[in-house]
Structures are given as structure tokens and as C-alpha cells.
């Protein structure tokens, strides 16, 4: 008596009882059928993938945004946004500045913005490489990015003022410090930061 299809499949999958496995080992017909079932499995797995003809992502975004009671969406890729460029408008008004103190603040801001842009550029170029990163390091990176995003929000508020201020310089200093930390984390994979 040959094996049933269910038994043959169990043999193929290595989960058959001793009796069924023993029969398959001794019976050429059943052994051939086990082999055929394995080939069917391989042929199924080798079927080509299918691609959706419509882009479903916008619908996912719309539905997620519609139902979120909490903050689901973080800012869309702070690096892509090129945020530093937004704030350079504050610079270049130096000609209009009257006092020495104001001119000095403007110069300081300009230096910090330039440094910020340099660091962002370094990050953008490392962003293109696929890096192997531990989950902890990735978590640190995201934390830093969140803190930079908070600074950017504060800068955007402070940015309405045409003139450089001490407050804004403080924010730019913090931004450069965080970017610097981000660069070193991405380079070295450090997770501890005394920030």
C-alpha cells in the first residue's frame, strides 16, 4: 500500500512518522512522488513576482493621516529638506546693520550657518551609502535628528526677525553641536553621547 498524498507531503517536509518515512525510503514509486512534490514546491517558489499597477502609497498616507490622533508623521526627511538654506535669508542683510554689535552677531551667525551647511553636506554624502548600523546606533541617530528638528522649529520661529539675535546664535550653536555629534555617530557607530 503506497503512501497517501498527505503522508508523501509529510515525508517531503521532513515531518513524517517513522513508518511513512521508512516506506518512502524503500519504495521507488513513493520516493519519486516525494521528489516530484519537492519540484512542484520549487516551481511555485520560482514563479515571477507581480507588481501593482497603481501606486497605493498615497492612499496609505491619506488614511493614516486621517485617523491619527497621535503624531504619526515626523518631518519628511530633515536632510532632504535642506533646512539650512531656509535660514540663510537672515544673512546678507549686513549692509543694513548699523551697529558694530549687530554686525558682529551677523558674522557669528554666518559662520555657524556655514559650518552647519558643511556638516549637512557631509551627512548627505554619507547618507547615500548603505551603512551597516546597529539598532542602538540607529536609535541614537534618530534621537539626534529629532533634536535637530526641534531646533529647526525654534529657528523657524525666531527667523521672522530680520536681525541676528543672541537667541538665534544660541540655536545655531546647538544645531552645529548636534550635527557634529551626528557626523561622528554615523562615522564611528558610537551610541553613547554626553550631550
Amino acid at each position, binding site marked *: 500500500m503506497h*503512501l497517501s*498524498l498527505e503522508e508523501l507531503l509529510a515525508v517531503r517536509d521532513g515531518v513524517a512518522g517513522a513508518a511513512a518515512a521508512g516506506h518512502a525510503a524503500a519504495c521507488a514509486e513513493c520516493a519519486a*512522488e516525494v521528489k516530484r512534490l519537492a519540484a512542484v514546491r520549487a*516551481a511555485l517558489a520560482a514563479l515571477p513576482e*507581480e507588481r501593482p499597477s*497603481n501606486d497605493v502609497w498615497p492612499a496609505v*498616507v491619506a488614511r493614516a493621516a486621517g485617523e491619527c490622533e497621535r503624531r504619526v508623521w515626523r518631518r*519628511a526627511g530633515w536632510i532632504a529638506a535642506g533646512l539650512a538654506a531656509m535660514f540663510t535669508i537672515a544673512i546678507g542683510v549686513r549692509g543694513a546693520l548699523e551697529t558694530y554689535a549687530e554686525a558682529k552677531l551677523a558674522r557669528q551667525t554666518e559662520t555657524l550657518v556655514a559650518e552647519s551647511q558643511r556638516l549637512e553636506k557631509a551627512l548627505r554624502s554619507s547618507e547615500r551609502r548603505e551603512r551597516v548600523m546597529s539598532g542602538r546606533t540607529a536609535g541614537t*541617530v*534618530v534621537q539626534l535628528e529629532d533634536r535637530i528638528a526641534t531646533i529647526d522649529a525654534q529657528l523657524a520661529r525666531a527667523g521672522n526677525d530680520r536681525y541676528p539675535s543672541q537667541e538665534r546664535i544660541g540655536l545655531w550653536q546647538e544645531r552645529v553641536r548636534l550635527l557634529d555629534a551626528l557626523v561622528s555617530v554615523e562615522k564611528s557607530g558610537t551610541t553613547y553621547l554626553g550631550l
Partner: protein
Amino acid sequence: MSVVTPPSFVVAVDELTVARARAGDEAALEALFRRFETPVYSLARRLTRSPHDAEDVLQETFLEVVRSIRRFRGDGSLAGWIRKVAASKALMKLRQQGARGREEELFDDLAGHTSGDGPGGSPAPGTAAERVDLETALAQIPATARAVIWLHDVEGYSHDEIAAMAGRTASFSKSQLARAHARLRELLAPGVREGTCT
């Protein structure tokens, strides 16, 4: 039995993208979507057969991913998690199809189809023409048997896992797998080939 992630779900996702996605970063979530849309859609398409339903499954799957990725704690099994969400959503869609009567004989027991137990089947498909035959045959087997053969033989789920996802028993899953293979053998048998495959 070794449960292997099938090639379609072998997707490299860097930790940073996952961490950003977990923080709700839209760009990172979209990057995940782009990496997984084809395997998720393919799985859904095999189970539901309808492009429209498969797109629904894709949408439901990623809505779930967006909602729940914060709570996802697995290490390196993101693909496994997304695949499981996709499989569950696809099975749910099948049940809806069944309730709407779109899928014939969903849980029936066409005894005649499983009568061909034992050895003596046709050779397994190998050439391109045979591949088309296999796809056609697969689409013709009853929904539940098709879902089980796909989830078990291609996606690598065990009968226990399939039973848990489908709300059935492991022995139900086993009999559906046998039924699917019996149907495939019948559908592929006539005129597949004789002798060598040249």
C-alpha cells in the same frame, strides 16, 4: 522543517531606515513601502487572484505597518513581520470574497479532487510554458487550498502557523495542502509532456 524566508521577502533594510520609520518619518516609511510593495502585492495576488483585491491588501498591510511599527520590537525580522501582516490581510480578504460569494466553494470538500492519492503524477513543471501552465493551474484551485499551498510551500509557514492565521486546525491545513497538490497534479497532468522536456 526549516522555515526559510522566500526570496521575495529577502529584503535588505538598514537599521537607520527602520529606526526612522519607527519614529514616524514619512520618507523612511515610504522607503519601507517601496522595498516591500512587490513581495506583499505578489503574495496578495496569489491568494486573492484579483489585482484590485491585492492592491487593497497592500494598502491594508501598510496601514497596519504605519500604525504599529512603533510597537515592532523584532530584531532583523521586519520582513517576517510585514509578511505575516500581509498574509493575515490576504486571508481576511479571502474570507470577505467567500462571504460575498465571489470565491466558489471556499470551504467545501470536493472529495473527487482528493481522490488521486498516491504516486503516479505528472512531472513537475520546469520550462517557461510549464510555468505558465502552473500559474494557470494555481489560479484554478479553490481559494483555501490555494492559500494553504502558497503559505506553506512558498512562504514557508508551518501548518500550525497557517492554522493560527486562518482560524482553523493544523489538520485542516494539512488536508488542504494535500488537496491543493492533488488539484495541481490533475490540472497539469493532461498533455504536460511525455518523455523528455525538449
